[in-house]
């Protein structure tokens, strides 16, 4: 096991140490809450952040598996294209925005604007998700086990939003569709893979009303 103490280090020093340590072992990082952009743009590696993480954790992740044992700051897994980011606590504002691929899982709650402009990632929120979640989502899956805030999935264009709980209000260009056997099988796969206890049959499915809602 490799361990990096990020205390009093800047992003350059920590990420240099991290890249130098990615040789197959899991790298543990402690005292990293002040680092914004930790583990940016990695293509491989297993990283565990002990405690809280700062903003932009795992930004541009393209293959690494990053786990945070407590909470993540704003914009976790921003612009991810591959790999996995797991937050065992809560993630703040704007988690998993602009992602093209990969899996983002937060066991607790996710903040406002999480999943915005998702273009292909799988985003799983174990608790509640805030307002304006999945705004202008163009592809991928967002799965919420708890409740959602206002303007949920506003201007959804493509992809699927599954939610077990309630939403305060639904955004524009959304419609509710019956959940299919295919959806249930897909959700079961996710739940099995990530040890989530939930019954897919309880989920509601939200999809786009139109692929082209802005201009005729």
């Amino acid at each position: 096991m490799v361990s990096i103490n990020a205390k009093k280090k800047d992003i350059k020093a920590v990420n240099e140490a991290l890249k130098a340590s990615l040789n197959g072992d899991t790298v543990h990082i402690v005292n990293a809450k002040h680092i914004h952009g930790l583990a940016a743009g990695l293509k491989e590696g297993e990283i565990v952040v002990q405690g809280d993480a700062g903003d932009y954790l795992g930004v541009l992740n393209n293959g690494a598996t990053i786990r945070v044992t407590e909470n993540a700051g704003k914009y976790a897994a921003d612009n991810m294209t591959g790999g996995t980011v797991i937050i065992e606590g809560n993630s703040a504002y704007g988690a998993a925005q602009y992602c093209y691929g990969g899996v983002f899982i937060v066991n607790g709650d996710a903040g406002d604007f999480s999943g915005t402009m998702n273009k292909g990632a799988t985003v799983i929120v174990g608790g509640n998700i805030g307002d304006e979640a999945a705004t202008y989502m163009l592809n991928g899956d967002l799965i919420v086990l708890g409740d959602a805030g206002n303007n949920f999935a506003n201007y959804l264009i493509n992809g699927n939003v599954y939610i077990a709980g309630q939403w305060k209000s639904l955004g524009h260009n959304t419609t509710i569709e019956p959940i299919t056997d295919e959806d249930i099988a897909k959700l079961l796969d996710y739940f099995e893979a990530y040890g989530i206890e939930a019954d897919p049959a309880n989920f509601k499915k939200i999809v786009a009303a139109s692929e082209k809602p802005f201009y005729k």
Partner: protein
Amino acid sequence: MSVVGAFCVSVNKEACLNAKMPGKCATCVEVCPHGVYALDDASGEMFIQNYNACVGCRICVEFCPTNAIRINPAEPEYISRYPWTFGVIEEIHYKAQTGDYLLRGFGTHGQTPNFDMITVVPSQIASDAPRDKYREECEMDVVIGEDTSEKPMHLKLPFVWPAMSFGALSKEAKMALAIGAAMTGIAANTGEGGLLPEEAWLSRGYSDENSTHKEWEPGGYLIVQWSTGRWGVSADYINSGDGIEVKIGQGAKPGMGGHLLGAKVTKEVAQVRGIPEGTDALSPCRYYDVQTPEDMKHMVDFLRNATDYKYPILFKLGPSRPYADVAACIEAGADAISIDGLVGGTGCSPDLVTQGVGIPTIACIPPAVQALKDYGVHRKVKLIALGGIRNGLDSFKALAMGADAVGFGSAAEVAMGCRVCYACHKGNCPYGITSQKPEMRARLDPVEAGTRLANFIHATAEEIKILTMLSGHSRISDLSTEDLRAMDMNTAALTGLKLAGYERPLPMWEGGYSSISGNGRDGNGKNEAAP
């Protein structure tokens, strides 16, 4: 103010092929981007179905095989009927009929404050003697990111192609810009639509994917844009260029994000952008992943980090509050800042935004330069002026006002063949520049258009060299506002330049920039608030 209704269309029936032989020629019907002409299906006769739709691009005139068409401006209308001109009336009718607002491609038209009322001051006996353009050298190179990046960008000439995306432009136009950059040693820019693979090697001068054959010397650079839609962006993408441009705004539609309508989102465009084919790609007006100035600093940090500190970080601003916006970019850690003026172009924008929103380019440059001076980074953090710059004369004036380089977006399109028909958004560009249709794209040869672009750049560089040397300098970084005079009160008021004849700035500028801005800065590069 809409451009429609501003032109008179007349067809000489004596010369028109269709008039003599209905059904035999309908070239004007085919090429007009605005549907001025139509064909009667039954008789095969061409007729003018909407005179007022003409925008004066004269593409029909150019294509007419018998030179039968005349397009004449109806300027007197703007005197006799203003403000209720045909354009205004047509615009209201359009809205009343459709419930839609107007969209427009290209850029602003009509009179806005511009470089034309600034004159260049030549060197004579009382100043440094002129340099000899024909027999002496002139330094025109520009380095971006010298102190911050392992691989600074070393532009051979003080030009860039501003960001224009694949999607807004055709593949052939993007390839031509890359080739033009390679032939002249300047920088191409992906725009916000992802990376067209060919751009990566063509812009560096290589004709093959593996970059084994250097076809074009000296080879240029590629700036990859990081924007609010983040189309096609990944860790590999940001490492595929020679610099990263963080887009904040643009001149044609500041505060609005990007507009690429579904008609232009073909399979290939959709693939590069990573979105479904045919959907509108509307970039958000702001970054969803930036809420504070601190966030912006962190964004610059992680971009540098994810590129191993190799490449410079550039910012692009729309024309809003140039002093404060440039200061914010400096604070965020920019190596270069482009500021795009009111008349900056675009592939698609709401008409009223392109026409009526933003500060003119000439009024953006002085506050931007002042911010750089106040932070002690003028000429270090490079300033790139954009927005309606057409030639060496405009460029020289921007450089003398304190910019380090200039960009040509609209002018580059014209250099490739564009006739300015304002219909880039419709996807039917007859020259294949802003169309994704195979039959239109086939008309644009990337190497030929790239050569035209390179010729334009070389000619413009020579123009700047002439002006630099006749004003007594041998490098463009020595140019200053002393090399310019405003020729009218408005221009002197907007720019702080000395007024010709009066030989000093207008009284309100006598205390420097602070005297007009009220921000406490003394205008001499000193500022208690700045570091």
